[in-house]
């Protein structure tokens, strides 16, 4: 092999990771809310790619279907139904912005420190080949996790009714 397959996967992971984070940063820095939404799409699609690399192909497809196809479209609807006649600068006052960024940065540093110092169970290196995940997910979803599954269903129903009741015009 000229290029080892592992290196290709690693490079793809880094590229997708950088794109995901860039999308998040762009979301914050964009002046227009619509551009923020497009940056959000970039993040979501990149994260779906990361899922594929992590062997979660089913979840990646669901991520695109639900996040990009439904949630982002919902947010875009929200944007279009609330036209802002005056384009306000969207970032909060400098003090709040700086302190917010500092808190987030501090959180990141602490998390990375924890990740670096924890003694993770060192399993043997995993083989590259991925198994299909759909059957395993389905089986566990309806056995081990059937109670959370039912609760999630009820949550969706409640959210749907709640959203209709709140947004309805009398």
């Amino acid at each position, binding site marked *: 092999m000229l290029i080892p397959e592992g290196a290709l996967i690693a490079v793809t*992971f880094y590229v997708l990771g950088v794109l995901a984070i860039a999308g998040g940063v762009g*979301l914050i820095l964009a002046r227009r809310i619509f551009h923020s939404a497009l940056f959000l799409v970039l993040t979501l699609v990149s994260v779906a790619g*990361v899922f594929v690399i992590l062997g979660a192909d089913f979840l990646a497809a669901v991520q695109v279907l639900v996040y990009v196809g439904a949630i982002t479209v919902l947010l875009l609807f929200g944007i279009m139904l*609330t036209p802002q006649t005056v384009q306000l600068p969207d970032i909060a006052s400098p003090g709040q912005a700086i302190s917010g960024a500092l808190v987030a940065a501090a959180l990141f540093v602490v998390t990375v420190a924890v990740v670096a110092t924890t003694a993770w169970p060192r399993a043997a290196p*995993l083989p590259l080949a991925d198994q299909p995940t759909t059957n395993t997910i389905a089986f566990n979803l309806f056995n081990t996790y059937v109670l959370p599954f039912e609760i999630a269903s009820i949550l969706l129903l409640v*959210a749907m009714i709640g*959203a209709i009741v709140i947004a309805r015009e009398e």
Partner: protein
Amino acid sequence: MPSELPPLYPIGLQHGLVLGAALFAVGMAGALTKRNAIAILMAIEVMLNGVMVTFVTFARHIPGIDLGGQIFAMFVLTVAAAEAAVGVAIIITVYRLRRTISVDQADTLRG
């Protein structure tokens, strides 16, 4: 050249966790600094994505949980969908009442 062993997986556990933490932090910075309520919702979605990356990384690297991490990522997704639906409904109602969706100006309950 006959294939001997399958090539090893090159991404370590820590890589995924750091990416998840970075996404979470970026989303948090956005949620704390933006004023547009919809932008805050979007930033929260980025945070949730960071959580999902973390879950899926654990599912990949810690054996013996039978993809529990991926299933929990699916629950996160469900909750995100519910949250976005209710969030947008609330924002639209606020806009209807006050003609703005800036969180600084929706301060009726401030004492």
